[in-house]
């Protein structure tokens, strides 16, 4: 499959359909996998595909340094593909300049705190039923035996309420839940790694950076940290695709995936909305329905 991917990218570069391919390569310490930016067909051997391809490369699509390349080919897993859809629906990427190279994925192994690979899949992968990417320009790889029904399955299981941790959180009393998040947020150092790693956090000036006047406390105090984490979760309602990039990046090990899952779940429960499943859909927080149950919005 790795060769198939390299060949596809080589052809795109040779035909000049793309100026750069953003894929995965062994770039880190001890050959750890991270993003590579390949501009020449001669360099496609740098590209790899395996169960350590963790990052959601869609985060690079809105960066000015990357946009400057011109026509971009991007390698996406099925979950990451949804991030590209959201970016397109929010007018952040020009689909004419984009070739979306979807790879069939049967799960990604979790990284341990020291950067090495754990012998276990991410929770999002354990519950994933969509191993074949949707809404992409081309698909690389075959649907494995037994996975062919994926497309018929409920899309986006990663954000469905079938996560054991989420169920545990839901079962808590309000006080218990508050205590839980209090402990989690107390660790936040306000590095904003969650924001920088998230494809959906593309604002040129994040509200946390507004200082004329200040909107939320920038201090890593409990008050400031609650304000920041809740604000970010709200801004991701109906937008988060559950890729987990934020949680992987957080140096404090805060369970941001769980926080975002609760909000995605609410978007689904109350509005039947799942982020990134279809092009041309208006963003949930950018629209309202005439028959909304809340009066203030009508």
């Amino acid at each position, binding site marked *: 499959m790795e060769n198939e991917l390299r060949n596809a990218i080589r052809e795109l570069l040779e035909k000049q359909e793309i100026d750069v391919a953003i894929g995965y390569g062994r*770039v*880190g*310490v*001890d050959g*750890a*996998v*991270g*993003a*590579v*930016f390949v501009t020449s067909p001669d360099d496609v051997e740098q590209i790899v595909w395996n169960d350590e391809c*963790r*990052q959601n490369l869609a*985060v*690079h699509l809105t*960066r*000015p*340094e*990357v946009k400057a390349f011109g026509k971009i080919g991007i390698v996406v897993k099925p979950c990451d593909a949804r991030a590209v859809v959201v970016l397109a629906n929010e007018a952040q990427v020009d689909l004419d300049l984009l070739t979306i190279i979807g790879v069939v994925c049967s799960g990604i192994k979790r*990284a*341990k*705190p*020291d*950067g090495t690979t754990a012998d276990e899949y991410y929770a999002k992968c354990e519950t994933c039923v969509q191993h074949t990417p949707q809404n992409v320009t081309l698909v690389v790889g075959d649907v494995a035996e037994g996975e062919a029904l994926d497309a018929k399955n409920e899309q986006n299981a990663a954000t469905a309420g079938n996560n054991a941790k989420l169920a545990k959180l839901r079962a808590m009393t309000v006080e218990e839940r508050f205590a839980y998040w209090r402990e989690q947020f107390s660790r936040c*150092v*306000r*590095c*904003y*790694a969650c*924001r*920088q*790693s998230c494809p959906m956090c593309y604002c040129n*000036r994040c509200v946390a*950076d507004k*200082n004329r006047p*200040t909107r939320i*406390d*920038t*201090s*890593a*105090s409990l008050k*400031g940290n609650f304000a920041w984490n809740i604000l970010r979760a709200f801004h991701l309602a109906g937008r988060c695709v559950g890729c987990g*990039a934020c949680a*992987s*990046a*957080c*140096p*404090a*090990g805060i369970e941001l995936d769980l926080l975002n899952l609760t909000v995605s779940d609410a978007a689904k429960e109350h509005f039947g909305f799942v982020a990134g499943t279809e092009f041309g859909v208006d963003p949930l927080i950018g629209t309202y329905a005439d028959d909304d149950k809340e009066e203030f919005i009508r």
Partner: protein
Amino acid sequence: MSQIVTLEQLKQTLGAKLAAGAKVVAPVLDGEFASFKEIADVEQASFVPRICMQNSIEEFFFPKHETIFTFVRQGNDVVLNDAPDFDVEQIVVGARPCDAAALPVLDPLFAWDYDDRFYQRRRAKSTVVSFACTQSDAHCFCTAVGGSPENTHGADAILFDLGDGSFEVRAITDKGKALFDGKTTESDKVGKACDAPVVNFDVWKIADWIRANFDSPVWEQVSLRCVGCGTCAYVCPTCHCFDIVDEGSYKKGKRVKNWDSCQDAMFTMHASGHNPRDTQGKRQRQRLTHKFVIYPDKFKFYLCTGCGSCSRSCAQMFGVRPCLEALDKEVQ
């Protein structure tokens, strides 16, 4: 002859300090994460030498968030109240040698154009006990910046795990001697650290390359995968940038000092909207130049102890060692 302390004696020593009102900071395990935390009970701590930590000991000298003074409006006056001095004894135990080594690197900075009493007080009140490393990993490069797995720079005492529930104690300073005075027993067992991590680049030569190549396109190329998340700076024992802001209202509030990072685009954003470091390549260049050129020029120390925390924590598999290795390819 060596001096040894058993794990029980170490716990008792720290327990007695806690009982006497001292603040004790030690590695605490939470699942697979280990971080330095203030402990209330010695049983909370894990006394196993570890190289992968979620934070460094720096925050117990230079906290992530600290009040400088509070203000309150009274009639037409504003009353200012200085934040109280740090006034308890602090014992930081279990530091990695590369954590402890960061303190002498930071000392001249916090006593340079302005005597930072917050840092100075904590430093004066603290005793630092490090653990000699028992293993290194591919992120470690202390050897490249003058350190080693048994480096005692910045430590008041260093403990060598003897693997039998006891540690060899080597007191380095009077503070270290005082902490273990009467607590150790003589032995013929001698502790040994792991082998020094192998490094195949020369920081000195890379620093020369950095001096000569401010405008090199290499900076943008090597930094492409960096998303500017700043994790590398927040886990770093030597990174020390901060921002000063006022919080509260015009009636009542406080002036605070918060950690900041040069990897954030906002760090250099001018009020006009112009940003002199508008790409990640420029921001990485700043980070590396500060660590390996600007700081040593000014304070004679690299602003890096080679601990590897930055690359261990980087979700994009970047950080200082990969960056140095990429720059090393340019050094001919």
